[in-house]
């Protein structure tokens, strides 16, 4: 019996060792819950029957890489909102002010609801690392994508003239088609979020 138990443990550890490191993150499940934007509007996207997926994009007022992506985020929202993808832009900034976020949203033509996550509750819950970083959840709270918007930035200061891999768009297309994206996790390049709580 003891030998059988050892064999079981051995097999179990072997299997764990074989699981790709991205899996744990891919399968992360969170309760999406209610979200209040800077205008005071309450959103409960998971409750709506029309919601196919929810995208939380972590952004920042002064991060140049996050700002660079605003026109792309606007276009993605315009394309995918009618298909049931709900976009939210989250500022995980303990010093953030709603007025400044509203001004920024106007300046950059942000169409999606803007959330001030001053206590970094959402950033902690989603394990957000940098701005800009996209987290895509199904209404049941399972995460299907986390990472960069596309690969324009290879690293700090190394920018492709044009992206060759449109990761967020592909993840959203997969969600609309009812499948899991081919790539569930990518590394976003941007300004690191310091979690202070």
């Amino acid at each position, binding site marked *: 019996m003891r030998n059988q138990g050892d064999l079981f443990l051995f097999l179990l550890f072997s299997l764990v060792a074989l699981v790709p490191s991205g899996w744990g993150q891919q399968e992360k499940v969170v309760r999406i819950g209610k979200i209040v934007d800077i205008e005071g509007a309450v959103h409960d996207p998971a409750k709506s029957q029309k919601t196919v997926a929810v995208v939380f994009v972590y952004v920042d007022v*002064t*991060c*140049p890489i996050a*700002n*660079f*992506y*605003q*026109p*792309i985020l606007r276009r993605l929202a315009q394309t995918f909102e009618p298909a049931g993808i709900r976009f939210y832009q989250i500022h995980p*900034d*303990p*010093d953030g002010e709603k007025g400044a976020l509203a001004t920024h949203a106007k*300046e*950059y*033509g942000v169409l999606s609801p803007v959330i001030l996550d001053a206590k970094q509750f959402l950033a902690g819950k989603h394990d957000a690392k940098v701005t800009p970083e996209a987290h895509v959840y199904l209404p049941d709270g399972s995460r299907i994508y986390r990472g960069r918007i596309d690969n324009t930035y*290879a*690293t*700090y*200061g*190394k*920018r*492709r*003239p*044009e992206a*060759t891999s449109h990761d967020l768009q592909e993840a959203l297309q997969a969600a609309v088609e009812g499948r899991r994206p081919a790539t569930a996790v990518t590394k976003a390049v941007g*300004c*690191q*979020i*310091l979690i202070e709580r």
Partner: protein
Amino acid sequence: MTRPAFSILLLLGPLLPCSAKVTFNEHIAPLIHQNCTGCHRPGQNGPFHLISYRDVKKRALTINDVILDRYMPPWKPTNKEMHYANDRRLSEEQIELFGRWVKDGMPEGTSSKNPEVPEYPSGWYLGKPDLVIKMKGKFEVPAEGRDIYRSFVFPLQLPEDKWVKAVELRPKAKSAVHHALFFIDSNGAARKMDGRDGKAGISGMGFLRQAGGITDPAAAFGGGNGGLGGHVPGATPARLPGDLAMFLPRGSDVVMQTHFHPSGKKEVEEAELALYFAKESPEVNLVPIQIPPLFGATKGINIPAGEEAYIVEDSITLPVPVKAVSVGGHAHYICKSMAMTATLPDGKKIILMDIEDWDLDWQDRYQFEKPLDLPAGTTLKTRLVYDNSASNPENPNSPPQRITWGQESDDEMGSITLIVVPENNGKIQAIKDAQRSQLITSAADAIQKASRSFLNVKNYDTNGDGLIQYDEVPGRMRSRIFDRFDKDGDKTLNKIEQPEVQKYLDSMLRGFRRR
């Protein structure tokens, strides 16, 4: 914090015991204020402020990454032995100190050691300018899209010659302007070209080719005759040392070649340029020595798709002794590294500039701390390496395409310009003669190289199938060759069509040789 106090800190930094607590007020604030706040403060180009404890703490992880990566402060040369007057490099000890602070949880420290934020000039950095000129028209930079290269005219046409000690640019589109180079247009050609596409300015990088009045485009990069230097975010404007000055002939305009990075929001450019004049003409003029000459036009730059290390080299021997004042390079996206070395007559080698990770975005000029004495007989050698593979993220083509010499950003160029002063103006002609002779030798080499490469039809057949497909011919040659010689119009040159192409290429080669 004053400069002497900061210097003391730099000396103490490496001696800080490992157990000592690194705090913002005592250690980090002086480092940030000295090296980062110049740009990262209100009214400057830095995207966020780095002044207070909160500012720096919030960005600490990012700062740690970019200083470790040496992306910030922006400074490209990696040769440690050379001392430059405008050096912005952090020392290894400073980088380590910042890392320790982050690791220790970013403590603020005691308020008694609260640092004083240095005072920065609120107006023009160099004080009241002698003249401020405004660019002609306004240009709207779009929110997104590829980088934009555009030139703008600053109408000037002064009634008398002037000598310029310094220029300072105040861009309006602060988030979008990446850098700018200032040229002198002495015959009004740029004014005529301005606005031809319905917008302010002149599109692309090619205006130098078209504007006949620009005497020496190479010089803009060095601020020698024909140019007034450049503007790089974060670089502190400075007057040229001693009595040195840049020549601004009467009746000329200033043309600013600008590189914009769309920033995510629309911005409007309407820049102002401040000029600081010298009271008298300098005793000796600045002379640019560009190697290879004409930004590499004679080097036959022809980089096959996928080539990871395409090398361009050139050299010149100084006919007279000079003092080298500054050095700077120019190339486009796929240049990977560039270096200029001086070999003195006694065999001693001096690395004047070595950029291991060239970045078109940070085209700065590097001024030597003290002018360097280079005796007659010194050989100046330039080496540039290009990476046209798919693994180079800055490759403008995906998949990679053959890239040849040209003035648009998707073409390639490459040279390093050393600005020198000879003993007296009488020696300038000898330098110019050496450069001319170098240009002729370089052009002859280019013809030989061309005859071995693109002037030999067999060399186009890169896949070795005996036929020449449309994609195998360099972009500039395609229509010229296929329109004439692809008789059956199948976008492939067969064995009957190829000899006719070779006859044509031979006639081109004869044409080159006659020039």
